[in-house]
């Protein structure tokens, strides 16, 4: 079954796969997580605020994003971002946006919807009395949120946030539909060039599995540790 295999193709392309492909994948994962958590937290705060309209806007955004397939959203932003850029900067024609910037905007905006649901659950897990106590001490809304509610919410939800990051890491492989050279894109390009689909896709699967599995074990460990403290 493996007699026709050419495992050397992996060794020959390993630099390209990791230096170019995996760097793209990991940078995109990291930055989109950061942006997604920040925007998601803002969305969660909007959704839980007592002001008019704001909860509505946040809920509509989150529900819309969560109803659509990521592939469709990737296409949407790929074509929309140049026009949005033109609209924001007031340029003459649609702005050229690079593959990385386009992917980063897409994943940040898309994953923010998922992160916001996690942060909403985290904020709601904090007893209301703590918020009241904060106000009674004369703290303002940003202070109550920044010093009391969000640090605890973030800490409680850390395992779930990290699990969502692993999902995000796997989701970044979908930039394949834009022919971008992420890890899978790099593997796919070598596979097509050398006619070695079997070896390259098996190797790609192995690498994704190893990283995701190791990360999920770490999350479990972290969960066990934070559980003891409480």
């Amino acid at each position, binding site marked *: 079954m493996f007699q026709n295999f050419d495992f050397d193709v992996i060794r020959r392309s390993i630099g390209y796969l990791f230096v170019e492909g995996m760097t793209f994948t990991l940078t995109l994962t990291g930055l989109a997580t950061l942006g997604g958590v920040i925007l998601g937290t803002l969305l969660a705060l909007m959704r839980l605020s007592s002001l008019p309209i704001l909860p509505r806007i946040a809920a509509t955004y989150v529900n819309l994003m969560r109803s659509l397939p*990521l592939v*469709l959203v990737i296409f*949407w932003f790929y074509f929309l971002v140049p026009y949005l850029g033109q*609209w924001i900067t007031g340029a*003459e024609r649609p702005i050229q946006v690079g593959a990385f910037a386009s992917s980063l905007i897409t994943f940040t905006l898309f994953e923010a919807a998922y992160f916001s649901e996690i942060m909403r659950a985290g904020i709601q897990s904090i007893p209301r009395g703590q918020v009241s106590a904060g106000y009674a001490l004369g703290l303002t809304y940003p202070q109550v949120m920044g010093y009391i509610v969000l640090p605890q919410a973030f800490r409680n939800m850390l395992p779930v946030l990290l699990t969502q990051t692993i999902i995000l890491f796997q989701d970044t*492989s*979908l930039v394949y539909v834009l022919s971008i050279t992420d890890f899978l894109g790099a593997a796919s390009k070598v596979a097509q060039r050398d006619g070695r*689909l*079997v070896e390259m896709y098996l190797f790609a*699967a192995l690498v994704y599995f190893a990283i995701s599995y190791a990360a999920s074990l770490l999350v479990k460990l972290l969960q066990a540790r934070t559980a003891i403290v409480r």
Partner: protein
Amino acid sequence: MKFRNGMNYNWNWGIFWEPSPEGVGTYLDMLLSGLRWTLATALCAWLIALVFGSAVGVMRTLPGRAAQVVGNAYVEFFRDIPLLVQLFLWFFVLPELLPPSWGIWMKQMPNAPFWTAVVGIGLYMSARVAEQVRAGVNALSKAQGMAGTALGLTTAQVYRYVLLPMAFRIILPPLTSEFLNTIKNTSVALTIGLLELTARARSMQEFSFQVFEAFTAATLLYLVINVVVVTAMRFLETKVAVPGYIAGK
């Protein structure tokens, strides 16, 4: 709709009624055919996900150590590899690893992208269904199973008549979102050539250059599917609710 600064995009909502370059039907027909493939793929994949997911989920609640190890390995395998890569494994890699005659049969099978997507997405989702089924069974009090055993039921009967009917009712809401995920995940199969809704919107954009009309239509169709599924499942939830339990009255 008009952007300021004279954005050079020409809106043409009449495009849906213009004939598609395929020769038969309009662009709207093209999108609707994509919608039918999306639904057919999602329903068939969901069937596989439910059958395999229930079996593995039950396995992970059995007392035997071997069953748990196999169940855990199954879930980890399907959860830790991106769906896109899994579809590539089924579509490009598996036919090469099988005996040549089988591989040729797989490659020449009519509607190969459809069947690959059904199996690939079905098994991928089955790992998630297994997690839910396990959670549902574990959420029941241990006494229910023991009471069944005390009545003289076999383990299979305890699951069939006591544990699973309750467990499935408990996990109905999360199963709804897993079904919605299955529908959304069918769009990944455009990479192996399945002509589902997103793929059709994409080709409409390539043929007609009306990007935003095409994607708006696809977006609306996905939203309609969501609303229909959520409404139907709410109805089912109230229908099967157990009095005195969860959603029961």
